[in-house]
């Protein structure tokens, strides 16, 4: 496939590229969101640990 043809996607570029882009954004969002979810849970446990230590 020629380089310009590739980006034009046979005239369907405005449908193909946003679809690919949206799906990739969803993949990235999932990774970001899962990492954030884990980091928040870890922070809550560490806070609970620190509070328990300060009460001792």
């Amino acid at each position: 496939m020629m380089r310009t043809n590739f980006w034009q996607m046979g005239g369907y570029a405005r449908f193909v590229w946003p679809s690919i882009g949206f799906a990739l954004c969803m993949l990235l969002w999932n990774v970001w969101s899962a990492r954030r979810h884990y980091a928040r849970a870890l922070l809550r446990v560490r806070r609970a640990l620190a509070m328990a230590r300060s009460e001792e």
Partner: protein
Amino acid sequence: MTEGGSRINMWTWFYKLASPPYAYRTAEALMPWFFAVAAGMIGYGLIDGLVFAPPDYQQGDAFRIIYVHAPSAWLSLFAYSTMAIAGAIALIWRIKVGHAVAAAAAPIGASFTLAALVTGSLWGRPMWGTYWVWDPRLTSELILLFLYFGVISLRQAFEDPVRGDRAAALLGIVGFVNVPIVHFSVYWWNSLHQGGTVMRLGKPEMPGSMLWPLLAMLCGFMCFFGAVLCMRLRGEILGRERQSAWVREAVKA
């Protein structure tokens, strides 16, 4: 090893998974492998599907949307099934990890349902002349998205997390009836949406040059789901077991 021995080992492993520390460590160990396979498969699938696969004789290059649409749609159903089965296991056998798996799977499934709807809509515009039509497949997929939102909201609506988990699991199980409706809607009713191309009995309709990248994308998305599920599951278990001694030890380490 005998067949009976391997069956006992499988059940032992299954019972072990019901233990939060074991599930946490298993998820931690599996996650990088899932991510590595997902990256390889999705990378190959995208390059082969977008660059090397020939255009469709009817749809031209617009058919390439299938490489993200079909895996997203497949995953939307798979994640819902995972959520419903995990919820059922948690309700029947009172296994807490089941609720954690269901809670972890819900947002992932919702995001892929949204991706399936958006990419399908973008594919529908050049092929059907409209972004949206109240077609059985599209409508049942939209209902699936609302079911995900319902399950996520219901879990958070209760002050008592145990009651929230049970209510969400029940809704997940009841809503599971929509999964076969989404899948078979194109056969049961008149639909604009095309029938199955890969998941059908007999030979797939696609030639190999188009099919291989699609299979790679399906496999890659499944592994990606496994990886993100493991990551979310670790967070869920940590949050739910934060008073346990093993969590305190794990966090200190």
